[in-house]
């Protein structure tokens, strides 16, 4: 386009002058028309506004509202958890806003906005640890839930019979797994057994322990659960989980529709998340009698560091995804030892 219409002034001769001028004016008109349609398009299709000043005013507005929310929490005594969750969501929205507009912002503004975001996060973390007493991670503290806790007394291999099995609409046969439970401790000991695929689904406020090696693990619809898993030789597929803690080792891990959940992982490849937010990652920390041999057998004895190499399929940009983060070291649970829970469960 430009090449066609570029006029070299040196060649302009008086005879051609009139026609060239006409050509030139029509070119200018075409260009302005094109520019018009282009800007119309960008107005309608893109949520961003490509103006530094309007970005900054919106950014500051959101920032101020988050700060006032943070200040409020000092005076709140109850409902702190949901309050903090809301603030966390606002902060991550703010971060998203920065990232969405980062392509046109001057680098100084990107840096300073990101700094503001991380300061806000820090403040929230500090308040969180100040105002909400940190729960110590221990199995002993479960005493309070005594009446609601269920321990399978039978041999581990019969556990799957205890759990009520609900066939999916087209499943031809039931697969081993834990399904449809609330407030129970569910233990599966796979040692010496050849376990193919294992399913954990539709659980609320349960604790799941899978000792030994399985080939594939499917996790679906879990709320407020703790899931401790020995090595998985193949892949793990997680969908629709909220408020959970997972400690797991596998060759591949895919996480879909997860909210406010912590993952302690050892993975041979890069874990991925999709349609998730508020998920945090830390290294694997499970321990039970003989776990070293199991990990070795599953080629998972090496720490690859991949637990922190998370790919977010909903965030294919160079900037860090706002949907996940590394779990700060001081908030990690430490080593989770599930070996003594294998036999006798008198502590619970």
């Amino acid at each position: 386009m430009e090449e066609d219409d570029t006029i070299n002034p040196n060649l302009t001769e008086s005879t051609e002058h009139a026609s060239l001028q006409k050509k030139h004016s029509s070119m200018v008109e075409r260009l302005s028309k094109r520019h018009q349609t282009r800007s119309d398009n960008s107005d309608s299709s893109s949520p961003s506004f490509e103006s530094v000043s309007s970005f900054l005013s919106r950014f500051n507005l959101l920032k101020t509202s988050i700060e006032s929310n943070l200040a409020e929490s000092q005076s709140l005594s109850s409902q702190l958890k949901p309050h903090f969750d809301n603030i966390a969501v606002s902060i991550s929205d703010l971060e998203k806003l920065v990232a969405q507009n980062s392509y046109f912002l001057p680098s100084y503004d990107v840096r300073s906005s990101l700094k503001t975001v991380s300061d806000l996060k820090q403040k929230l973390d500090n308040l969180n640890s100040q105002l909400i007493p940190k729960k110590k991670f221990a199995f002993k503290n479960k005493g309070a839930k005594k009446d609601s806790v269920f321990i399978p007394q039978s041999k581990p291999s019969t556990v799957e019979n205890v759990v009520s099995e609900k066939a999916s609409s087209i499943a031809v046969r039931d697969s081993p797994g834990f399904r449809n439970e609330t407030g129970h401790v569910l233990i599966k000991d796979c040692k010496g057994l050849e376990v193919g695929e294992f399913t954990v689904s539709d659980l609320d406020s349960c604790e799941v322990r899978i000792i030994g090696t399985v080939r594939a693990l499917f996790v679906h619809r879990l709320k407020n659960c703790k899931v401790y898993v020995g090595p998985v030789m193949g892949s793990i597929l997680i969908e629709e989980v909220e408020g959970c803690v997972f400690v797991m080792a596998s060759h591949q891990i895919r996480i879909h529709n997860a909210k406010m959940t912590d993952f302690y992982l050892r993975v041979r490849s890069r874990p991925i998340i999709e349609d998730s937010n508020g998920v945090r990652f830390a290294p694997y920390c499970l321990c039970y009698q003989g776990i070293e041999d199991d990990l070795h057998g599953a080629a998972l004895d090496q720490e690859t560091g991949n637990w922190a190499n998370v790919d977010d399929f909903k965030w294919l940009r160079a900037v860090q995804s706002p949907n996940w983060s590394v779990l700060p070291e001081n908030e990690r649970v430490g080593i989770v030892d599930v070996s003594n829970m294998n036999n006798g469960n008198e502590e619970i």
Partner: protein
Amino acid sequence: MGLLSIIRKIKRKEKEMRILMVGLDNSGKTTIVLKINGEDTSVISPTLGFNIKTITYQKKSRHISIHIEIGRYTLNIWDVGGQKTIRSYWRNYFEQTDGLVWVVDSSDLRRLDDCKMELDNLLKEERLSGSSLLILANKQDIKGALTPEDIAKVLNLEAMDKTRHWNIVGCSAYTGEGLLEGFDWLVQDIASRIYMLA
């Protein structure tokens, strides 16, 4: 000379086949491609985007009395990621596909509905209407996996358009079992259509 015959001529010279591998995430597409190419399959991350592999395929007839080299083909295999977010990009790879490989995780009973729905959508696509369809019922090595027969029932393959050339083969990308059998069928079927060799 029609366009189709020109394309056929060009293809006959190079004997190339374009093969598109699709299926839900976690079905094992990348592992299958690496396995048939003899590569290491121990570290594979979920595919963000796609991989292309060019593989030379050679097969001689086992019937000694006939002595026919069935053929030497170059397979261009397009392995496209199956995560939900990127399934909408599959359509970008439909053009000129000779063979379609639909990979199923036979141990993932819960998502067979999803699997059927995505396959049905794919088969409605006009640009794929002439391609041969190989369904690989993968992960047969996992205890509790459905057999290829069960998968065929669930996906209701018998109800498919009668003009479609299709086959279902059980396989394990982990052990390699069944992979060659599946690709042998696919290459033969495509060859018999495009290169008119039986």
